[in-house]
């Protein structure tokens, strides 16, 4: 008998889904066994302050609670219980023998190395960092608290030591570039996949396939991911550590965990934030640009948080209203978000945790970048003559003001997003050693964008002649995205003599449905905001549907609690794979060794000198799956002049499979001088095989570019993060953190495909070529003679590397008497190059600097000059300075449990090497078509490195008042 394996797998996946659904509605009633009640207080060893939120459980069971805001807890424990376990992120775990006591007070110490911290690295329920052969970056709620920001990538910027996050524009809702270990793919975005409470959420961080073009600034789904009420964020770097996340985890995994409530009476927190928002003129050549473009805007944010519950059920709720009216006229952003969670211990063996988040985000934007409607940068690019000569030529100033006013008053681009994310986690402990966990949830995101170009506006900016009445246009874009996730895992923990075992097996599926429509109208009657009032309408849709399902297993074996080996695999199936491609096997294997726990080590070296020394090495594979439907040969049916035009589309590839990122990494973690110095070092050697290239065929074939598994890409480098506890006295603590990460990127092979480009301009763009970095900047390189004449031109020269050779973060955390705290965070990069497109445009407008000699300054030959506009893109930016004061408890009386006041300056300082452009922003690259084609696509790699025409992150000066009742 022949078994249809695909159908079998498909059925299994459905089964998995149904089993997960079964957990959703399964309701079990249990009665607690009688025991004793233990209470107590948990305090900090360093400060003596009470510690809220500490997990207190009866060891070996799931019976537990968390400490309240005063550090107190009360717990019913079974009669046979003998040990209580106390854990909290950032603190060393502690155990206390009950020994008949009814009151147990505990003092907990901070854990700088955090080896004992529990993290969720795979699809299991959690594992201590100590046992891992890889690293996990954790951002705690305390870290998040000092960042008054509203989007996840902005929050994480400068907080993840080995990750670079760049906001590509200062306009609301726009994309970012998130990179960790270089660029592993020449096709797929470097944005990590994101889970909220175990559920995958939309992480599209590029232009969606159908989206408006304001000349580079594109909308990102990261701008509206509900991030209220976060307990912590974990980031697992791509490659070896993300094998269990499978076919698209090569860029890493961000996991966001919602807070669980604390038992006790409801605690209410109010937070009000107000301040000023203003554009940064740091990068302008002309002062007049900022004077004309910017005005100081007002920002306000109001937040309420409630949490409470009893021993069995806790809840949290958080709501936020945010508005800023922008640093420019006609840019504003209003946002409403809600998030709640419920944690219910349904029985001693059965736990339910559910969370729900909703966001409504609305904003307006202005044209920018490579767009003739970009009036503001038009000033800085000399589009209105030399602003320094406006006194002599007042008509140029008047024209700039007139166009600026017309754009502010008449240009109309609005976007509104509604997003709903929910997760349901069911945990079942049939026996003490086994944890079975089912997760089901979804992310539903709906956005609509409308751009109206009235005749009046087009006349005002000189795009059409005076008197035009029939060239108004309206573009409506809607995107409906639904992602559904289901997973079922079982974790078994066992000990045998000196061995300990953690075994995880499970399965997971997710399905993404992405449907987009562009409905456009032309010849629109003036004054209409509906496409109904138009002579001509057109529509286009875009459908992306993909289901991925996989099975995984992982074994972590410990010996003497200091030797650990870890191995696992995942097998993934994906509806985007070619018809000849079956399940994809992703293995991982690793080992770690806590040398500092060896008796000989502790005997030889006091823990006051070296408290922790851990060595680790691992090898693992993860993937990026190909775009849906890229495997299929297509005939394009294009609308054309009222008919349907059949034309050959992509040839298709039945062997299309995920690109595979193989990572070998090794390193160590070291804590010195009573944990005053912490150092983590990792060397990684990452190779992408079967890299997905949408490379051209020979033109003589007439074949459209096809995504194929053609290439090989290498990324190598070091990741070093350090932490220094500079001060730790009765009154003072000061922590300084710094990291440096290096990247050496190279395309090892193009699989015989010709060089191809990844966007940019005709004369100067990022290309993919064997032996050079992904997206190396290609263009003509001129050499000038003694009189400035163009002596020679090297065509298609390698002009620069868009990938920084190094980047990292800097942070300072200081507290005085636990009342006054100062946080400073920033990041930097070096060793990459960008294109100064602003200067290219200044060249045309006659306001350029002297980089092009007079004798070679024929605008008619500027293609030959490409190389002169390449500049180093080094920068150091201070992103956040926050000073917080917490009022002494004695003046709070019994009304408040806490009052704090903060003052923040966001994006206050910028240091950079480039000339009059921000190397971080990019007005290009977030493409919406496959390389070399007109085929709509999204989630494509964004090389960046084109600095122009969009404003940088604005400065914000904020005051925050936080009241807790």
């Amino acid at each position, binding site marked *: 008998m022949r078994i249809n394996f695909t159908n079998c*797998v*498909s059925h299994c996946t*459905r089964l998995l889904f149904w*089993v997960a659904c*079964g957990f959703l509605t*399964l*309701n079990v*009633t249990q009665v607690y066994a009688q025991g004793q009640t233990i209470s107590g207080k948990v305090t900090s060893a360093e400060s003596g302050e009470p510690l809220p939120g500490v997990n207190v459980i009866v060891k070996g069971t799931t019976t537990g609670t968390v400490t309240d805001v005063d550090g107190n807890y009360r717990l019913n424990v079974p009669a046979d219980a003998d040990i209580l376990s106390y854990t909290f992120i950032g603190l060393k775990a502690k155990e206390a023998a009950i020994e008949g006591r009814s009151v147990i007070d505990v003092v907990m110490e901070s854990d700088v190395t955090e080896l004992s911290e529990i993290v969720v690295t795979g699809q299991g329920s959690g594992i201590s960092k100590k046992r891992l052969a890889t690293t996990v970056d954790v951002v705690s709620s305390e870290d998040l608290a000092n960042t008054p920001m509203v989007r996840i990538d902005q929050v994480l910027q400068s907080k993840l030591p080995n990750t670079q996050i760049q906001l590509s524009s200062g306009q609301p809702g726009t994309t970012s570039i998130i990179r960790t270990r270089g660029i592993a793919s020449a096709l797929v975005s470097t944005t990590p996949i994101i889970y909220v409470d175990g559920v995958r959420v939309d992480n599209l961080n590029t232009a969606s396939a159908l989206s408006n073009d304001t000349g580079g600034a594109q909308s990102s789904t990261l701008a509206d991911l509900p991030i209220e009420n976060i307990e912590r964020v974990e980031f697992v770097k791509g490659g070896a550590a993300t094998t269990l996340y499978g076919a698209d985890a090569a860029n890493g995994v961000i996991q966001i965990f919602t807070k669980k409530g604390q038992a006790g009476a409801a605690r209410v927190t109010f937070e009000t934030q107000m301040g000023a928002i203003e554009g940064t003129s740091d990068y302008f050549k002309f002062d007049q640009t900022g004077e004309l473009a910017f005005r100081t805007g007002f920002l306000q944010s109001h937040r309420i948080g409630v949490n409470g519950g009893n021993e069995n059920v806790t809840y949290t709720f958080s709501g936020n209203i945010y508005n800023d009216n922008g640093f420019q006229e006609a840019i504003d952003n209003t946002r409403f978000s809600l998030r709640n969670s419920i944690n219910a211990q349904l029985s001693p063996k059965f736990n339910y945790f559910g969370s729900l988040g909703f966001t409504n985000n609305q904003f307006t934007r202005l044209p920018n970048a490579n767009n*003739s409607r970009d009036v503001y940068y038009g000033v800085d690019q000399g589009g209105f003559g030399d602003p320094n000569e406006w006194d002599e030529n007042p008509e140029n100033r008047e024209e700039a003001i007139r166009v600026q006013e017309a754009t502010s008053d008449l240009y109309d681009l609005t976007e509104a997003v509604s997003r709903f994310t929910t997760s349901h986690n069911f945990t079942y402990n049939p026996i003490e050693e086994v944890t079975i966990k089912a997760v089901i949830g979804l992310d539903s995101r709906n956005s609509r964008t409308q751009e109206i170009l009235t005749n009046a506006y087009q006349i005002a900016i*000189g*795009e059409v*002649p005076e008197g035009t009445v029939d060239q*108004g*246009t309206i573009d409506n874009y809607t995107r409906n995205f639904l992602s*559904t996730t289901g997973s079922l895992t079982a974790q078994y923990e066992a000990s045998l003599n000196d061995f300990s075992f953690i075994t995880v097996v499970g399965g997971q599926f997710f*399905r993404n449905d992405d449907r987009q429509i562009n409905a456009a109208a*032309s*010849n629109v009657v003036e004054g209409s905001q509906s496409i109904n009032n138009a*002579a*001509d309408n057109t529509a286009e849709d875009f*459908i992306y*549907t993909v*289901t991925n399902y996989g099975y995984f297993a992982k074994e972590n074996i410990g010996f003497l609690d200091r030797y650990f080996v870890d191995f696992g695999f995942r097998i993934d199936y994906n509806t985007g794979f070619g018809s000849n491609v079956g399940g994809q096997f992703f293995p991982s294997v690793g080992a770690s060794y806590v040398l500092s726990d060896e008796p000989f080590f502790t005997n030889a070296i006091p823990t006051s000198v070296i408290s922790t020394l851990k060595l680790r090495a691992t090898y693992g594979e993860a993937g990026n799956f190909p775009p849906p439907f890229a495997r*299929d*040969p*297509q*005939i394009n*049916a*294009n609308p*054309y*002049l009222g*008919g*349907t*035009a*059949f*034309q*050959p589309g992509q040839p*298709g590839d039945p062997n299309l499979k995920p690109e595979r990122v193989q990572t070998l990494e090794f390193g160590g973690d070291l804590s010195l001088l009573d944990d005053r110095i912490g150092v983590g070092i990792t060397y990684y050697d990452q190779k992408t095989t079967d890299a997905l290239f949408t490379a*051209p065929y*020979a*033109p*003589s*074939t*007439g*074949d*459209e570019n096809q995504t194929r598994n053609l290439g090989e890409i290498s990324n190598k480098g070091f990741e070093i993060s350090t932490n220094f506890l500079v001060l730790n006295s009765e009154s003072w603590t000061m922590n300084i953190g710094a990291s440096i990460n290096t990247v050496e990127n190279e395309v090892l092979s193009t699989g*015989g495909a*010709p*060089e191809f480009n990844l966007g940019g301009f*005709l*004369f100067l763009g990022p290309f993919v070529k064997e032996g050079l970095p992904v997206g190396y900047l290609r263009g003509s390189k001129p050499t000038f003679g003694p009189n400035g004449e163009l002596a020679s031109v090297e*065509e*298609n020269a390698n002009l620069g590397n868009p990938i920084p050779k190094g980047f990292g973060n800097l942070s300072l955390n200081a507290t005085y008497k636990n009342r006054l705290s100062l946080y400073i965070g920033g990041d930097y990069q070096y060793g990459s190059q960008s294109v100064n497109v602003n200067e290219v445009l200044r060249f*045309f407008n006659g306001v350029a600097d002297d980089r092009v000699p007079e004798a070679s300054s024929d*605008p*008619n*030959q*500027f*293609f*030959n000059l490409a190389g002169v506009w390449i500049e180093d893109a080094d920068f150091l930016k201070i992103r956040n300075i926050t000073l917080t004061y917490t009022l002494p408890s004695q003046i709070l009386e019994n009304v408040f449990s806490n009052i704090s006041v903060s003052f923040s300056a966001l994006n206050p300082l910028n240091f950079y090497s480039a000339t009059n452009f921000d190397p971080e922003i990019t007005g290009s690259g977030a493409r919406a078509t496959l390389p070399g084609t007109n085929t709509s696509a999204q989630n494509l790699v964004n090389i960046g490195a084109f600095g122009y025409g969009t404003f940088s992150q604005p400065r914000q000066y904020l005051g925050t008042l936080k009241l807790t009742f």
Partner: protein
Amino acid sequence: MKKLLIAIYFLSVCFLPTACDFLNPTEVINPNLTDQSVIGTVGSAERWVIGLQRQNALVYNGIVDIAELGSDNYVNTETFFNQQFDGLTISYQDPDVNTAQFTIADLRQSAAFGIEEVFPADASAEVTDQAEMYFYRGWAKLLSGELFRRLPLEPDGPAVPSVDHLQSAITDFQQADQLVPGNASYQLALARVYYDLGNAAEASQHAQAAINIDPEFLRSVEYDALNAPTSDMQDALFDRGSFDDLQPLPRLDFLDPKYYGRSASEESPIYFQKIEEAHLIIAEAQLAAGQLAEAQATMKNIVALVQTRPLESFSDAAEDRTDDNPSSRPDSTIVEVRASPQDPFRAGLVLNRQGGEVSVPVVSGTSVTAAYIDTQNTLEGLLETLYLMRQEIFIAEGRRFIDLGIKMPVSETELLANSDIQQGEDIQALIPTFLPTDMDAIEFTPGSTQATIKYNLNRILVENRASAEVVPFF
């Protein structure tokens, strides 16, 4: 017991076959069409022909702007359109060379697929569909032969000389003509390809046949303002919404912009076949045969024909000469222009774009009059006039580049992906040695009333008419 019942219930649901029908997360349907879902369907051949028309529009987007810049017709003063062609730097590494090659090959291969796969499978297909497929395959080969020095004639094939493409085009045009006799388009296509090959007799015969079928014949490439493709050349010449500024040779100013925004939903077409060409071919053949009087008569007929073609009026006030440096080039009716320092100044060639609407010929225009033709009594004079007429009538259609004898090389992408492409001649452009690289240079002082073009290329063509690259009947 309760738990057990619940468990049994859910397990039962899970294993019910109907549960799978209710929800199947692995079911994914590609919303697009595949070859399997198109071939054999009713109307597929007709739609395939519409696809070829659309592809031809993309071909013209791929070739016209670079060909115009690579001639004396237009100069690129400040745009992201190609800059290398302006100075006759035509490199195999130029991405525009690759685009031109690819779009033409796409047209050829699409037409071949239509002939071999789509047409035979469509029971509703008509012979006119089949003829059109042959026509477009021939058209792709014609353009390959006219624009490229050497090029593969087959996918991944070796590069063969332009003459092979032209001869292969004849076969396709003849096939189309046999399927649908009496079609002016096919006759005119044959006339053109024989003209390219220097066969005056065949060219004249087919040209006359085309005239006999339809003395006003026009065939256009149409653009779709709403659904794309839109016209790149209209964008380059008229639309001011993006960063572009192409400027015509001052003596051709009255013909610019040939394409303009008719409305937000209507683009200007490019007339890629028009009966004027048949007369021009006949006239050149007559000159080659020494029949000067007959040629004069034919040329007057052309003038008369051109006068029947429409002028359209519209505002071109958004365009300056140039956009960045207004008044740096002739931009007023008071400016007289001479074709070279040796030629007389002529009035009436430059328009005033800021003085209200301008009237511009959108099919054909010429400054040549019957009276002027009467003044030309020599072979050289008439031939130069004839090439001026070709230049004027075909402006913004990509033809001047071909008349100047310039041919592009095989592209770098083809070289890298096709092992049959050789270094050397395959990847070298053909540029006649007598062409100056600054061929669209002018002398003009802002504010003055006279402009001088540096080179009269029509005269240079006549002087070099014995060269194999140009003036094919000589």
